[in-house]
């Protein structure tokens, strides 16, 4: 179980308070969506949960199975099963996509006391998942995210998610920059990863993505707080009427 308790966050660089007391409990198997207007603190939340430098926690806690993860470095949080699908996946020139994913997987396995996979074992697993997500081998041989189209970058994020098998997945505006077909493909990937012991936090501006990935809960975030929680119908309401009436 993943739990956010009365979380208050400042961005150190600008000394600005972005998150003003968020409480959220996410049980295994649940899919939660967070929607909200620009500047409501959605991306800050995803970076804070994954432990990025520069996000100062003024108050509150983040717990995984009842234990605080605030002291864990980002790589330790990752190895404990927290995965962030980036809104803008980062390019790293000269580092092969395939060897990057293998390094990541083996680092996590090592952290969790498991044997590292040799290249053959890894390739076998990779092929299976890549096929399903429509990622071709050519894309795996290229340097990480370099020259990838928007759709390729997002598919590559989901492929990493499929291989790393996290317990808690954060999708930060995964739908941004995707056409309808690419969005369907990415959603298909995410849906295939839904399971009883894996939960999701989907951050998005638009209801559209939630047509393909059906959430159990929808939260509306504004000014660093969750101002309303409901079921999928809340997303439709936003789509229909915008955020303004909720903010007042």
């Amino acid at each position, binding site marked *: 179980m993943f739990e956010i308790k009365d979380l208050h966050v400042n961005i150190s660089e600008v000394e600005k308070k972005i998150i003003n007391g968020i409480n959220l409990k996410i049980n295994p198997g649940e899919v939660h969506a967070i929607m909200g207007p620009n500047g409501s603190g959605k991306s800050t939340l995803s970076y804070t949960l994954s432990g990025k*430098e520069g996000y100062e926690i003024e108050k509150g806690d983040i717990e995984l199975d009842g234990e605080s993860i605030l002291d864990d470095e980002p*790589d330790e949080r990752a190895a404990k099963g927290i995965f*962030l699908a980036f809104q803008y996946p980062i390019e*790293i020139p000269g*580092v092969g996509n395939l060897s*990057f994913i293998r*390094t990541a997987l083996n680092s*996590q396995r090592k952290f969790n006391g498991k044997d590292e996979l040799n290249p053959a074992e890894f390739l076998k697993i990779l092929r299976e998942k890549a096929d399903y997500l429509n990622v071709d081998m050519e894309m795996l041989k290229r*340097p990480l995210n370099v020259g990838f189209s928007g759709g390729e970058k997002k598919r590559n994020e989901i492929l990493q998610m499929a291989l*790393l098998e996290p317990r808690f997945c954060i999708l930060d505006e995964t739908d941004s920059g995707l056409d309808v077909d690419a969005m369907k493909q990415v959603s298909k990937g995410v849906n295939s990863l839904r399971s009883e012991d894996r939960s999701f936090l989907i951050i998005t501006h638009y209801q559209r993505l939630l047509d393909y990935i059906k959430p159990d809960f929808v939260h509306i975030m504004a000014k660093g707080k969750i101002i309303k929680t409901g079921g999928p119908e809340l997303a439709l309401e936003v789509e229909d009427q915008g955020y303004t009436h909720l903010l007042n």
Partner: protein
Amino acid sequence: MSELKLEAKDGIDQETINSVKSLGESYKYGFTTDIDMEYAPKGLSEEIVKLISKKNDEPDWMLNWRLEAYKRWVKMDEPNWPMLNYKGIDYDDQYYYAKPKSLEKKPKSLDEVEPALLETYAKLGIPLKEQEFLAGVISPENNKDTKPKKVAVDAVFDSVSVGTTFKDELEKLGIIFCSISEAIKLYPDLVKKYIGTVVPRSDNYFATLNSAVFSDGSFVYIPEGVKCPMELSTYFRINAENTGQFERTLIIADKKSYVSYLEGCTAPMRDTHQLHAAVVELVALDEASIKYSTVQNWYPGDENGKGGIYNFVTKRADCRGANSKVMWTQIETGSAVTWKYPSCILRGDNSQGEFYSVAIANNYQQADTGTKMIHLGKGTRSRIVSKGISAGKAQNTYRGLVNIHPKAANSRNFTQCDSLLIGNKCGAHTVPYIENKNNSSRTEHEATTSKIDDDQLFYCLQRGINEEDAVALIINGFCKEVLQALPMEFALEAQKLVAISLEGSVG
């Protein structure tokens, strides 16, 4: 000429800088060998030049060649144009000749070599026994993943060659691989014909000094049509204190021949600076091809800039024959000061020169390195790929010349210089000189400067890769093109060395 000076901005977090800090701390080859040495008196004079020549039992023509160089050198001034800031070298306060006493008579076989010397090379991971073995400058425990391969080694300890392996096997093919002191005695005609023809005695201050006092080095001759079946390598070790190493390497690839040659270097950790001034001359005749790879890992000094090797090296290749080809690859991780410009004179029509370089400067290290491509023949091509990495308070300069002469029609050059900065106290400089005097010839120059940014690091961390591994991954990605130019077995070693040089604890 244009100059680019860029410094990293704030942003990289302190931990990265810390994790990347000391090269000195992680220098694995800093041990000294306790051994009885014979020294020539300190300082440099005509007498010392004569003594070195006598020690090597040289013919008169060689002695005279040296003396002329010496006479010229005393009238020359140390160059002050490089972007290097170091305390002047006191040429009278060092030894120019140091030799283990046990090598008074050159050992006939390795069994006769003093055990302390053999142990030194074993510790460095350099195979002096003729086994199927991998040569490298990294300790042998790293070698288990790689398939063993034959590598012939000439081991130079301070001023003299300890021994050369696989000589007999190579001799059957007519290949000569021996120390240059032996070559002067055994193959005087070859040496006379080529020595100083690529790097003349008057070339520059350090090359002239070397011409006067060089004590040993390697000699290679590959006969016409022969493809050398194994990697040849020389391993240079400076051990004695206050001693300069002045080696001279001469490689001749006759028509249609091929050779791949590796060079590795290390030195003990000492508080004082030591001078290394080498000369390397390569000659490629018609359709010959030489691949010359260097992993320079001299002691860089400690994290406060104390000690370390002053590395002033002149390396040049003459692509004398048509369709000949020379490829320089260098991984420069060591030395307190590096001054080195491996160059190609593309004299033969359609000859090709390539230069691939990774230069890493950490702490107080300074590197001023690059290449010269002189296009004289028609249809000549050159390619320069330089990757400079600066960390700590280091300064890293790429200095390169591409010169296309009026007669070098239809020639091409491509240059790419990339700099990577780690932290905000280091500097990267690019000083390219491009002179094209032929309308049908083209040059291209690309340069970038970047730093490891927090977003790249965070992306790796978020996938579960720890910070040290992440830095190593990003840096190796940055150098990939150059590492791939190394012989395959060596590339793995170099990749690890790059990580070690920059990370303190990785590897």
